[in-house]
């Protein structure tokens, strides 16, 4: 009985790792540029499909595919920011919401056109099927552990990037006060571009794990956006490590909810999110 409960909790925590991966890119771009990319989830799904094509049509190993994808992801994010979003950033947030919303619909329907409505999955081979025994009745999937470790590494790396690197100082300056940044000679457009590029690299990493973890289809984007969104609000806006906490809370809430009724899994997550919003509107570990 206790073993089963611990199993559930562990599953929830590890699921939180996946959810954190979804969220870090969004937290980074939202924290820096003060706007939320509504198409974030759809870009994750787009990356998943790219990985699918690379692993099936091109026959690449999943890890190789992800490594190849990451620089492309950076370039996509940088270009998107420099040439599209930069034109509407800084003005009323409405415009950014509308543009990224439009992007979301375009990506979803574009994927539908190209790949059809079926769900897909990338085969993870031995990574996917191995389990680790932690004790009597307690087993965890190797892949979920790998995912969680990846989440910790990504969060830690972003934290290091922001607080211990030269570009990080510039990014924090621009997110603090973009007008002053202009005044003293920082090129905020380029810095935003880099920040978005970094955000997209994490999208690529998230897709790498997600494509193996579960099924995905062209319309899965919004669900992932909502998860990422709930994670960063739960964790506290602007806090990278908070996102990890938020992810774990959401993962555990969903897993426990699923115990009562498989269909309650998503609902449970939403309800916990709304409840935390009532009690701690600034999240669990707010930075600002």
């Amino acid at each position: 009985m206790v073993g089963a409960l611990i199993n559930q909790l562990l599953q929830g925590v590890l699921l939180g790792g996946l959810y954190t991966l979804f969220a870090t890119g969004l937290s980074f771009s939202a924290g820096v540029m003060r706007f939320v990319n509504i198409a974030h989830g759809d870009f994750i799904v787009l990356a998943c499909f790219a990985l699918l094509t690379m692993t099936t049509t091109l026959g690449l190993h999943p890890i190789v595919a992800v490594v190849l994808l990451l620089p492309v992801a950076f370039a996509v994010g940088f270009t998107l920011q420099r040439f599209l979003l930069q034109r509407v950033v800084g003005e009323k947030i409405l415009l950014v919401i509308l543009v990224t919303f439009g992007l979301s619909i375009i990506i979803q329907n574009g994927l539908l056109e190209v790949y059809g409505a079926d769900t897909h999955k990338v085969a993870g081979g031995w990574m996917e099927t191995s389990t680790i025994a932690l004790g009597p009745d307690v087993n965890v999937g190797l892949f979920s552990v790998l995912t969680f470790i990846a989440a910790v590494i990504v969060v830690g790396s972003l934290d290091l990037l922001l607080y211990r690197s030269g570009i990080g100082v510039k990014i924090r300056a621009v997110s603090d006060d973009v007008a002053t940044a202009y005044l003293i000679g920082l090129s905020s457009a380029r810095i935003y571009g880099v920040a978005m590029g970094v955000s997209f690299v994490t999208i690529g990493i998230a897709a790498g794990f997600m494509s193996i973890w579960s099924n995905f289809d062209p319309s899965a984007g919004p669900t992932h956006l909502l998860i990422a969104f709930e994670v960063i609000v739960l964790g506290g806006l602007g806090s990278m490590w908070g996102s990890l906490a938020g992810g774990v809370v959401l993962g555990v809430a969903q897993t426990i909810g699923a115990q009562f009724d498989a269909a309650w899994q998503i609902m449970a997550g939403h309800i916990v999110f709304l409840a935390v919003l009532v009690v701690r509107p600034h999240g669990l570990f707010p930075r600002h």
Partner: protein
Amino acid sequence: MARTNAAVLQVEGLSVFYGDFKAVDGVDLSVNAGEIVSIIGANGAGKSTLLKAIIGQSNRVEGRVRFDGVDLAGRSTAEIVAGGVALVPEGRRLFASLSVEENLRLGWAVGRKGSIGFDEVWRLFPILEERRRQKAGLLSGGEQQMVALGRGLLANPRILLCDEISLGLAPIVINDLYAIIPTIKASGIAIVIVEQDITRSLAVADRFYCLLEGRVTLAGIPADTSRDAVMKHYFGE
């Protein structure tokens, strides 16, 4: 190499518009290498607008700004700063959540690389070295102004534009700040000091301009100009 007695900064017939409103009207001024030029004028006279236009921040501009003979038209602020013009903005404008050291590092990152480094800044402002890891938002007004100055200096500019550095500070603090100005001048940097406080700025300046409603109403050498004349042109008739 800096040519002595050649104009580092040359402003010719500069007008700056906000919509249809002319904030700066046909201003001519020049700053030579190693000079301290003071621009005085009341609130709203257009001093800050003028500095911002020089650094490339204004949209609608007529006339010309030349830096070392080169026309700055169309250049972004980042390019201008990298070329050797640094602004110490009005109101300090530090990044509150960044540490003192990080704020200074930004100044160094955006400018030219040159002989001024952190050692020089700590020497000028020893108290900042003590507070280097503190968040800039927690410093006193005078200390923040020092950081803003240090940030400008770390860009190794040929000309430093100082916008109202005495604003909101206690007299004793202002004294300390102004005591640094000759040291900066001695290192070869030209300085433009924009102030509402006439006495102090004229005391350090080699030359001055008086701005009223966007126009230059008086220009000259402090030693040769009577206080009455200054008053008249500061306030208008």
